[in-house]
């Protein structure tokens, strides 16, 4: 009995110290990671909606509660909307694949960027390559937006397709009328 208590205490001490160290590391790096991801979002927005000079995040219930949608940004030029950037995700092979889809005018996809993914290196992570993503450019949201999958990365490519389709249908259903 005494043995068990002693062992539990030692394990407790080790895990508590580990927890404290991790908490400390987290507080050191958290800010930098957040800042970087904000910067990344800002630069994606600028490349996806090139005409816009101002961005606003849309967070009404109607939009955010939709399946596969994470965040939606509207781009304005001189006060009128010129396009939307939709952050959506699909279920990939190694977790969620998050993409940012730019939609301009009355429903033309201006580009797709992969924001985060943990697909298999060398296979699934080919979805981040420009030669794959550029195929979305010019697709019309009222039509089929899916593109051909990459050989050896079918699940990962489908995740991107799912995410882009979710963004397209969001545009068709709600955003178009704004």
């Amino acid at each position, binding site marked *: 009995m005494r043995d068990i208590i*002693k*062992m539990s205490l030692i394990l407790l001490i080790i895990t508590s110290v*580990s927890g404290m160290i*991790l908490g400390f590391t987290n507080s050191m*790096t958290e800010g*930098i990671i957040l800042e970087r991801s904000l910067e990344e979002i800002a630069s994606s927005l600028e490349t996806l909606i090139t005409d816009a000079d101002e961005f606003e995040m849309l967070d009404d219930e109607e939009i955010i509660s939709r399946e596969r949608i994470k965040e939606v940004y509207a781009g304005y030029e001189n006060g009128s909307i010129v396009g939307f950037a939709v952050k959506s995700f699909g279920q990939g092979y190694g*977790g969620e694949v998050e993409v940012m889809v730019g939609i301009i005018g009355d429903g033309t996809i201006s580009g797709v960027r992969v924001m985060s993914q943990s697909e*298999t290196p*060398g296979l699934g*992570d080919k979805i981040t390559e420009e030669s794959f993503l550029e195929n979305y450019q010019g697709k019309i949201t009222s039509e089929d937006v899916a593109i051909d999958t990459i050989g050896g990365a079918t699940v990962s490519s489908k995740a991107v397709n799912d995410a882009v389709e979710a963004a397209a249908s969001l545009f068709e259903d709600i955003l178009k009328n704004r």
Partner: protein
Amino acid sequence: MKLTNIFSRGLVMDNPVFVQALGMCPILAVTNTAFNSLGMGMATTSVLLGSNIVISLLRKSIPAKIRIPCFIVVIATFVTMVGMILEAYFPDLNQSLGIFVPLIVVNCLILGRAESFASKNSLVGSVTDAIGMGLGFTGALVVLGMVRETFGFGSLFDMQLFGEAFEPMALMAMPPGAFLALGILMAAFNKIVYAKLK
């Protein structure tokens, strides 16, 4: 055992990759380019160094019955720290290593060194062991990555080696290429090392 022996054993005689064949998952998965290999090697080495130091210091206070959970907690802590640091300061490398950074926890090289060396030896010995094994692991990964990148992408550390006419061997960039290249390198390594011993 002399420190130089401990060091050279990890680097050559008991090389974690070519001789012990430990940690095969990252070895095969992320060595598609030399840069990824170097990143994975450095990350693993820093975790190994940290865990060897802590486990060597704690070796007298950890009861034998719960040593494995204790080792795993220590290793997981270092891996999580390395993961956070990579995410904050080296986002590109973190992106290309992806899921294999958190998976360093289950790299049997690290638990293996904790169990068979750090838990029985002094701090200085354990540090030497970690550096030797870590460099042996990193070196082997980088060699494998260089071979695979040369054939699979026609480049080395992202610099193009050949002209336009070069047709990359896609196989080498994919998992089967990792097995083939590793097998050939292992054979060559053993041939060279054992030839020296005789």
